[in-house]
């Protein structure tokens, strides 16, 4: 059976892609951010996932407002990045696994999450940058991927409570896959930032730090916020926290924190990294607890 080995939350600021392309990782501006990834690399090297499910939000590469799903799941053999319009280098394609994707889609719909399935799906920087950060410099990334896209642009957005439940359903879907493989779930984006309006540049360190703490053991604490409250506390684009909440929901075993990093600012954003280990709880153990 497939097992969920852990979850990683990471910022996906486009400028990171340009910094990688220019090799700026050790420059003063970037060093605190890139050095913060080293424990994540060590954990990945020790745990070696076979597949990565990336929870992210499209910024107008694959989806437009003419037809905009709330939740979309990729079901392609390959996911391509493309020109996003403002000069980010185009990443090489990422391998998919349609059989795994369709299992996830069937399980999610059976679990009352009526997702949009996508046999063709361009993936934008919110998908490519986390993978570039977690597997730097590798031509062939050692994993198959499944993109799961969450609407964070067109209100109404799914609530934090709904996103945690989606994550739990994704967790059940992965754990019920018959193939033996180790799966990592990535939540992309955030933390607090706002690009638009006279409130542009808004960052909320106190709220971010609280979220990083609660995501480890008490993600339910974040489900009490409404979307307008999240916009107010995290900024218009800080609502990408939803992707992290979905990621955390998928970790259905015993969760422990391996590492976190928080650095202000990267571009307009409070950047963050959170590495969580998930120790699958065997069904027998669950029965014993009930008994």
């Amino acid at each position, binding site marked *: 059976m497939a097992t969920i080995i852990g979850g990683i939350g990471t910022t996906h600021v486009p400028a990171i892609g340009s910094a990688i392309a220019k090799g700026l990782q050790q420059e003063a501006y970037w060093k605190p951010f890139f050095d913060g990834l080293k424990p994540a690399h060590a954990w990945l090297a020790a745990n070696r996932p076979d597949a990565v499910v990336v929870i992210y939000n499209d910024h*107008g590469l694959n989806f437009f407002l003419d037809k905009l799903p709330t939740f979309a799941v990729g079901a392609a053999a390959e996911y391509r990045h*493309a020109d*996003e319009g*403002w000069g980010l280098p185009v990443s090489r394609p990422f391998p998919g696994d349609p059989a795994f994707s369709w299992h996830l889609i069937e399980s999610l719909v059976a679990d009352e999450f009526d997702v949009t399935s996508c046999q063709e799906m361009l993936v934008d920087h919110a998908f490519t940058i986390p993978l570039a950060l977690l597997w730097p410099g590798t031509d062939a990334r050692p994993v198959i991927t499944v993109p799961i896209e969450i609407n964070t642009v*067109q209100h109404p957005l799914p609530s934090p409570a709904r996103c945690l439940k989606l994550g739990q359903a994704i967790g059940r879907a992965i754990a019920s896959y018959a193939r033996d493989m180790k799966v990592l779930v990535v939540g992309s984006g955030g933390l607090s930032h706002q690009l638009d309006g*006279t409130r*542009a*540049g808004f960052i909320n360190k106190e709220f971010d730090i609280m979220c990083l703490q609660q995501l480890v053991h008490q993600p339910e604490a974040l489900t009490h916020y409404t979307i307008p409250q999240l*916009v107010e506390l995290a900024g218009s684009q800080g609502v990408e926290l939803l992707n992290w909440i979905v990621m955390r929901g998928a970790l259905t075993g015993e969760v422990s924190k391996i590492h976190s990093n928080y650095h*202000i600012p990267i571009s307009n954003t409070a950047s963050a990294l959170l590495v969580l280990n998930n120790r699958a709880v065997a069904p027998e153990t669950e029965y014993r607890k009930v008994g």
Partner: protein
Amino acid sequence: MTNSQQIPGTTIFNGTEAEKGLALNKMCFSFNSADNRAEFLRDQDAYCAKFGLTAEQSAAVKARDVLAMIAAGGNVYYLAKLAGIFGLNVQDIGAQQTGMSVEAFKAKLKEARR
């Protein structure tokens, strides 16, 4: 949530905004293509007309005025593609919207460390 329940300096991009901004956002979405960016740069008015922008939207684009674009229904995910054509990144447009110099805007971001 309606925009009558306002968060200061923030537009919630709801159905009303999306409906108002469709033509502008659709034009910006087209800028994922290099050919379309080149066509826009050759004749900006013609390109705005082709997408049916309102007078308010066209004027905002012409003035490169991000707050006016947002007031006309623009969403920053798509507007960023237009800003990119003009060589403006999110710090440049942050500075523009807050009426600060880019250096002052960057300093404000650093201040959030405290």
